[in-house]
């Protein structure tokens, strides 16, 4: 871990990222954008007044081939960016703390830690049909100081994660945080 050094006796219990469904949902706009150049001529053919414009989308010409290549390149790069952000945003549960690593954008990164000794309450929140069926939700970790609250949005199997956090919280001796 480059963002934080593990203390003596501390070990990583689990790394959690957002649920794969949320990641795929984020890819959907790029998939739609990528399909547009292929779907548009067919859609134009369906509307007789616009049908002559369908012939403009002839990808055998150098210009249209270049345009399509650039269009797909931009779509692909956007999708890869989504994957990069998905992968670099992570929550790490160690035997002593919870570490939240947020990659908001390139060159914008926030790493924050909450020691388990300061955890007061852990709440899970699963709202909606899809989150209930697929199994993802939100975990709120309340610390001893009221302002600090760790919120993990869209993590898979939040109940398991909550139980795991509470198990390690119970192993840590409580401190007053002073």
């Amino acid at each position: 871990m480059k963002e934080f050094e593990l203390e003596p006796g501390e070990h990583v219990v689990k790394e959690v990222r957002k649920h794969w469904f949320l990641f795929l949902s984020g890819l959907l706009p790029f998939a739609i954008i990528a399909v547009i150049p292929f779907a548009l001529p067919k859609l134009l053919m369906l509307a007789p007044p616009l049908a002559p414009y369908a012939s403009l989308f002839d990808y055998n010409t150098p210009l249209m081939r270049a345009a399509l290549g650039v269009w797909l390149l931009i779509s692909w790069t956007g999708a890869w960016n989504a994957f990069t952000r998905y992968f670099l945003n992570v929550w790490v549960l160690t035997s002593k703390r919870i570490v939240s690593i947020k990659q908001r954008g390139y060159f914008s990164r926030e790493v924050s830690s909450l020691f388990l000794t300061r955890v007061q309450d852990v709440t899970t929140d699963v709202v909606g049909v899809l989150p209930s069926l697929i199994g993802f939700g939100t975990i709120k970790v309340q610390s001893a100081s009221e302002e600090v609250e760790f919120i993990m949005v869209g993590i898979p199997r939040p109940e398991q994660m909550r139980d795991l956090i509470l198990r390690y919280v119970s192993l840590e001796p409580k401190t007053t945080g002073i």
Partner: protein
Amino acid sequence: MLNQPLQPFTPSALFEKLNFFGTLSESAMVTWALYAVFVFWTVYTLVAIYHWLKYSHASWVAFPAIAVHLFISFTLMFYALSGDMLFLSLLI
């Protein structure tokens, strides 16, 4: 050189080839547009790779992710350039 007559400005061979001072040819515009996109893509990819290598915690996912990105991107670039011979003639 005050006694020397003024020489008319002559564009470089590259400018002549691209017909820079006349009407830009379609293929030249496509070529420069592609250059611009590829330069942007290169900078963007280098920044992304930097983040992958620095922050992916030495994950096994990093190198396959970078490799897949480069492979698909180069394939799309090759496709985009496949109909534009002027781009290749400038490189050679």
